């Protein structure tokens, strides 16, 4: 085992997951490729969603990949930062909306 959990060089080895289980890896990569094609959403919109999700799940590989991908797709710095703010707003909001549960519990146990 390496001394650090994350190594940028591992990103390029993503495809190697097929060595242990090829059919599932093949299905996944085929599906993955199709997801990011132009559809009802453009490739760039999908790339910005991926960037936001990458920050929400805090995946350094995905942040690395979708920052470059956003630049390649012509996204501006402002667009990329707004995407991250969407992730932050949903994460923050998801915590805060649970406060209603806390408030209900306070009501429930209080005289």
């Amino acid at each position, binding site marked *: 085992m390496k001394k650090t959990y994350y190594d940028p060089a591992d990103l*390029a080895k993503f495809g190697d997951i097929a060595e242990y289980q090829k059919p599932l890896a093949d299905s996944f990569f085929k599906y993955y490729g199709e997801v990011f094609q132009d559809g009802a959403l*453009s*490739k*760039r919109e999908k790339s910005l969603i991926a960037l936001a999700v990458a920050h929400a799940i805090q995946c350094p590989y995905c942040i690395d990949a979708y920052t*470059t991908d956003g*630049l*390649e*797709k*012509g996204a*501006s*710095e402002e667009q990329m930062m707004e995407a991250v703010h969407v992730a932050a707003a949903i994460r923050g909001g998801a915590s805060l909306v649970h406060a209603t549960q806390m408030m209900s519990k306070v009501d429930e146990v209080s005289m």
Partner: protein
Amino acid sequence: MTSLKKQGNQLASSAFQLEVLKTLPSGTPSFATTLSNHEISSISPLETKILQLNLGYMCNQTCKHCHVDAGPDRKEIMTREVMNDVLSVLREHSFQTLDLTGGAPEMNPDFRWFVEQASQLVPHIIVRCNLTIINANPKYYDLPEFFKQHNINVVSSLPFYQKKRTDRQRGNGVFDRSIDALQRLNGVGYGTNDSNLQLDLVYNPMGAFLPGDQATLEQDFKKELQETFDISFNNLLVITNLPISRFLEFLLASGNYDTYMTKLVQAFNPAAAAGVMCRDTLSVGWDGALYDCDFNQMLELPVATTSSRNIRDFDAEALLNRRIVTANHCYGCTAGAGSSCGGQTA
């Protein structure tokens, strides 16, 4: 910022660049191997349609990515004698396009004289104008009028429709001055619906990544430039940065060389290889020497003929039978949707 040459940087040497380019990340095939893996024996020339002249390496800008290593400190310049050799060739052979580049070609003292002569001999002339030359000095203020008078196709770099990214690549204040120059060009009719005066912009990525889709980027540029600055233009030409000269220096200094080369190699597209510009374009150096393209010129890789290595010895048949000289920098032309001075190729 000064040129690599002025700094005495070893990357100013074309031999050193070629040495660096020989080393690819481990397991990465050379350009020649990739061609043969795709059963392409070599890239073969077609009849020359475009003659691209480098009028000199002098430039008022010193952009970070410049493949020419151009700048105010470069003194190499095409003389009138060489221009006369070019005019003789234009009189005897027909080309579709004469493409004038540099440096800033307008800084050549014989630029206007040459354009006046050449415009009588060739139907389409491109000037690769960096925009800021137009407002650099009062003696250039009338360039838009001069271009118009000679029906020049103006092709200008604008790496992004926003200031921050453009200035990072091309220097502080370049974006505002480019916008001013574009408005002046629009002012005389360039790039507008009611004229035939063609104004094309060139996009190149501002770092170690590949360019996106040309049509999508063109839409963005048109919308943003129109809405924010009331600027219009004809086409956006999307170009990949080739790993040579100052862009190569950036790749090495920033630790991006291996990743970028891997990206280019993985994106190799045989259709783009079939459409590389060196097939129908010939590059003429400031001293008249002939090259397969402007990049080979900067790497000092002359055309592979013995009889026609200078414009004064131009021999269409010998050139048609030559072998195009390729090396690993060529991966820049064959990645993804391809790249040429005319934009994406595949």
